[in-house]
């Protein structure tokens, strides 16, 4: 009896030592923030497709209005394709797909009574200034102005590059009910963690 108990204690302390994180803690942090979907890792187009399905299904299961489901899906897609295009940690995998390290969350804020979609990825320190100027400009606009700006940028193609039209943030702002909430978190000397929350 005593032997068994001792062995159990031993195996417990061994496993504790081998684990670096307590996943239940992470799970509780997510849960307490109202987050019902999260992903951290390599994002490719196929991963995005699967995640989009899961988010859509979950929202439909919660009987969320169709127009809100569509807006969440659209913002999620723009965020993930931004991560794929702009994350500093980007590579091409052995299936010839682009994949980028990023994080994605979708949840419901009880406090605001709104759904939110969040994304995070590392970006180059040099891109911080232009990115924050772009986001501030978008955040200063009314919905009417945003619509005009979107159409003007789409016509001119000024922000377009070979992998995108440069319209993603305007698209998100058009679908949002609040300004885009963004932050650059210091991490390394030449890179910052860029996080973005959009409330629907």
């Amino acid at each position, binding site marked *: 009896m005593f032997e068994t108990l001792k062995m159990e204690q031993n195996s417990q302390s061994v496993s504790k030592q081998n684990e670096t994180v307590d996943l239940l803690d992470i799970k509780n942090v997510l849960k307490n923030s109202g987050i019902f979907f999260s992903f951290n890792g390599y994002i490719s*187009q196929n991963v995005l*497709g699967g995640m989009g399905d899961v988010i859509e299904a979950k929202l439909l299961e919660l009987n969320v209005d*169709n*127009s809100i489901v*569509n*807006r969440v*899906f*659209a913002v999620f*897609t*723009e965020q993930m*394709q931004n991560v*794929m295009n702009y994350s500093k940690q980007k590579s091409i995998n052995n299936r010839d*797909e*682009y994949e980028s390290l990023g994080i994605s969350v979708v949840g419901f804020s009880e406090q605001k009574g709104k759904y939110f979609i969040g994304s995070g990825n590392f970006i180059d320190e040099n891109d911080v200034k232009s990115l924050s100027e772009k986001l501030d400009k978008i955040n200063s606009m009314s919905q009417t102005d945003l*619509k005009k700006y979107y*159409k003007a940028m*789409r*016509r001119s*193609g000024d922000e*377009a590059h*070979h*992998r*995108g*039209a440069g*319209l*993603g943030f*305007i*698209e998100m702002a058009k679908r949002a009910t609040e300004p885009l909430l963004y932050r650059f978190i210091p991490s390394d000397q030449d890179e910052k963690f860029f996080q973005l929350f959009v409330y629907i």
Partner: protein
Amino acid sequence: MDTLHIEATKFTPDILLDPEERLIRLVGKSYPENTFDFYAPVLEWLQNYFEIESSEDTTIELEILYFNSSSSKLFFDLFDIVEDAHNRGHKIEVKWIYDVENESAEEAGEDYKDDFEMLNFHLVEK
């Protein structure tokens, strides 16, 4: 000219470019990873079509349930080609088909109609 048919995928619409029927039809969702590369053959086909084929009636039907921002730019470029052809004398009817419950598809159609006011552009409720 040959017919070009690209079957739908999870991320791209069914695309039919049929010179005999004089029909250009895109149905489905559009949010590919590399939008401009994906649609390059489609735009090229269109340019050739309006150059080679006669200017009789052509119908263009777009029924796009969802599209990402780079596809939005791509469709703009597509309508640009179509408007050019219209200005050169081609008879073209554009139908933007949407489901009544899909507000953003309807709004997107209105925006394109605004941008290409020279075109014979109809919003068609499904």
